[in-house]
């Protein structure tokens, strides 16, 4: 059977939510009509036949005591007894010249069983071929006639036709000819009507296993369980041995052969559960009623009754089930426009078309060739179910992958955020601890040491001789303020530390009548996030030393502090310059200011990774402190 290609209309088109339902429905119905038309076209295609010159068409039929001459194909009525067969007798000619090639008799189609004799010798009994005994499979038969049986000239061909219903006996055209001329047609029919159904039955068996496993793992998905039952029924039925003479369990055999309505009921139940997601408690069980009745008849009734009721009850049930299923799947396709619904919808159309074809044939409304396609077309549905399930599975996997990827991204983001917030938290903890410590220290110093130093300053001022003590106490106070000040969190903005230092330096210079010329242009220096209090102390002490030198040794009237950011090839660098217009000194010599002081300044600068340049001449002294691009974490110079 041709797998209907779902090319037109909504086949591959993405779902369009805004489209009115009516147009969508029309599209869907048009597609189904196209498929049905294609199906009919395929069903009416002629089957392969050998050359007509090998046709044996004139037979005399001996049936129920009457003898008449017939032209095949011919029908004989159903009979009750297996021993009562219709006897067809015909002739074919064979010449001894044909002895080189094997001579065969080919029977494309018959119902239900035949025994073939050539010149009175039986050469074939189809009843021993279980495939041939199934009415739903158009099994052909071919028999090689032993050369010793053949006579030159006319040969007699006798066919006994056994009929066991439920439909009338049928014998299609018979061919007698060279084996190599007949066999290709036979092989093609075998492939189509014997091998293919077996292949699909195997596929149905695999589906049954897959669905059963799926249902076992996901008990809540009843739909899969129901479909697994349907597939199991179908697979068992397809592989059932149907020997007529001595079936092992005749009752069970007959019952299973009549299980098709039960199978179709299960498929319908699956459709309802899968596509509507709710089970109609009221009329749901009615789906299985015909199937159950047939099984009961099979188990307790006569085989003949079962055959008749299968024809009258079973086949229409199949039709009804298919119609309901088609409606459900169609509605689902209208609602969701997904691939499984579309595939199954098309497959149902194929099966329905085939069923209609077969019923019309049995009713002899269309030419009856006794070729039944329903079971074969059912494989389209199996393919659709398999494809639909795989599609759903792949879709679920994609969704899981997407979810997992999304989760991984979210997790990574959360991790980053957590890390950043942890680092921030640590930084804040550190700053808060420092601030608390500073506040405590400040309170202590303010209440104790600070007041006492102020008292010393005050006392020393009363007595002109103790001016040195006052200066020392003042210097101690200044240093105390520097230490407290540099412990403050300035967020890496060195300008904030320099601002307080400016106040202190100006206060220090004022009594000596030295002006502080502060040259800074906003924004001043770059921000150093890695700046720590100990860096600040070192820098401020260097500047203090430079200013103190200017006061003590230079005799200058003005100290200039310049703060600037220098643009260099490798980025911005801060630079602080303290210059006085005083006497100056020899940089390299041992003369004042003490070389120890200069060494100290250089040492402090090195520990901060800064560069200190000292130049002195008659024009005054300049201390130039070039800040590093990045302040070192630990002491750059130990000690």
């Amino acid at each position: 059977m041709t797998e209907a290609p779902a090319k037109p209309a909504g086949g591959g088109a993405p779902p369009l939510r805004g489209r009115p339902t009516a147009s969508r429905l029309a599209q869907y119905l048009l597609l189904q009509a196209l498929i049905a038309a294609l199906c009919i076209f395929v069903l009416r295609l002629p089957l392969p036949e050998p050359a007509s010159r090998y046709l044996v068409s004139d037979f005399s039929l001996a049936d129920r005591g009457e003898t008449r001459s017939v032209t095949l194909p011919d029908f004989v009525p159903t009979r009750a007894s297996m021993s009562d067969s219709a006897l067809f007798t015909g002739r074919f000619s064979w010449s001894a010249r044909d002895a080189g090639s094997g001579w065969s008799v080919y029977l494309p189609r018959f119902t239900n069983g035949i025994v073939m004799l050539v010149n009175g010798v039986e050469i074939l009994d189809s009843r021993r071929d279980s495939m041939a005994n199934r009415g739903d499979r158009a099994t052909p038969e071919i028999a090689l006639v032993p050369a010793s049986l053949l006579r030159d000239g006319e040969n007699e061909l006798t066919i006994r036709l056994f009929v066991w219903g439920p439909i009338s006996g049928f014998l299609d055209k018979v061919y007698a000819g060279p084996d190599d001329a007949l066999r290709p047609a036979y092989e093609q029919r075998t492939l189509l009507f014997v091998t293919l159904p077996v292949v699909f039955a195997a596929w149905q068996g695999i589906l049954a296993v897959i669905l059963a496993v799926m249902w076992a793992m996901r008990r809540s998905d009843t739909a899969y369980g129901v479909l697994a039952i349907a597939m199991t029924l179908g697979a068992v039925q397809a592989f059932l041995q149907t020997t007529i003479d001595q079936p092992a369990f005749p009752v069970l055999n007959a019952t299973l052969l009549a299980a098709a309505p039960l199978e179709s009921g299960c498929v319908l139940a699956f459709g309802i559960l899968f596509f509507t997601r709710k089970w109609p408690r009221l009329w749901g069980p009615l789906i299985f009623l015909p199937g159950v009745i047939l099984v009961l008849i099979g188990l307790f009734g006569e085989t003949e009754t079962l055959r008749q009721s299968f024809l009258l009850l079973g086949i229409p049930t199949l039709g009804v089930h298919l119609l309901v299923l088609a409606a459900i799947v169609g509605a689902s396709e209208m609602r969701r426009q997904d691939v499984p619904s579309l595939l199954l919808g098309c497959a149902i159309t194929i099966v329905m078309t085939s069923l209609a074809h077969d019923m019309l044939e049995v009713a002899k409304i269309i030419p009856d060739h006794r070729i039944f396609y329903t079971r074969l077309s059912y494989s389209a549905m199996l393919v659709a179910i398999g494809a639909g399930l795989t599609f759903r599975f792949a879709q679920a996997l994609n969704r899981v992958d997407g979810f997992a990827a999304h989760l991984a991204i979210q997790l990574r983001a959360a991790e980053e955020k957590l890390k950043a917030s942890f680092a921030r938290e640590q930084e804040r903890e550190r700053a808060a601890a420092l601030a608390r410590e500073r506040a405590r220290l400040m309170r202590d110093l303010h209440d104790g040491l600070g007041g006492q130093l102020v008292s010393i300053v005050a006392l020393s001022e009363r007595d002109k001789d103790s001016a040195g003590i006052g200066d020392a106490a003042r210097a101690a106070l200044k240093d105390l303020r520097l230490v407290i000040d540099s412990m403050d969190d300035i967020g890496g903005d060195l300008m904030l530390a320099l601002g307080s230092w400016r106040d202190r330096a100006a206060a220090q210079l004022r009594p000596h009548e030295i002006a502080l010329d502060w040259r800074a242009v906003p924004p001043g220096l770059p921000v150093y996030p890695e700046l720590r209090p100990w860096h600040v102390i070192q820098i401020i002490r260097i500047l203090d030393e430079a200013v103190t030198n200017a006061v003590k040794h230079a005799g200058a009237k003005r100290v200039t502090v310049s703060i600037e950011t220098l643009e260099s090839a490798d980025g911005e660098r801060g630079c602080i310059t303290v210059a006085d217009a005083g006497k100056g000194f020899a940089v390299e010599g041992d003369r004042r200011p003490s070389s120890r002081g200069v060494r100290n300044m250089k040492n402090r600068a090195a520990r901060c990774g800064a560069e200190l340049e000292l130049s002195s001449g008659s024009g005054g002294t300049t201390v130039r402190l070039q800040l590093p691009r990045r302040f070192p974490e630990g002491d750059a110079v130990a000690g």
Partner: protein
Amino acid sequence: MTASAEQVPAQQITVLLVEDDPPTLWRLQDALDKAGFDVAAAATLAEARASLAARTPRVLLTDLQLPDGHGVDLIRETRARLPDTEIMVISALGDEQTVISAITVGATGYILKDAFPSDIAATVRDLVAGHSPISASIARFIVRRTQASAEPPPGPELNTAKLTPREIDILWGIAKGFSYAEIADHLGMSKQTVPGHIKSIYRKLEVHTRGEAVFEAVQQGLIKL
């Protein structure tokens, strides 16, 4: 500070000096006396209250740690009762702990206890002329408080919600050591208006009642949320 205004003769400026450490009191009084101010002195809170009841000084200079109480209470009372009196706190270290708590009750500056006599006189004169001094470290403390942070840094409570962006910019400039002229130039304003802004900053940092302080804290908390 910078230029000192000389509109009011020093003799007419009455100063009440409250300081419990005798050498320090003597030192400050000496500096102010020599500059020509009319100085009254008190060593305790009680003496200071008695002096304030007898005479309204133009300027009040007070230490915070006093033997019979806290200078903050004296500042608050004076601010409420004598709105024309300028108030300054005397601090050993000029630390924000002392200065900010004084500012929030109405002080508009501080003098270091070890400041040179000339500086002490100049500061008082500037204050009377309407120039509230503000040091870089105090400005720094205030602007650091204007920055959003999860938990308030330790130290005195300070509500900076009322400060305008311009005032905060000025405080940043002072904290970084820029002169009034540089700040004014950078912010595109007149140099003369800077002292007015600083006075306004002091007034905005003042908390008038305890209830208001709580209300504003809650409001700030809500804003942060």
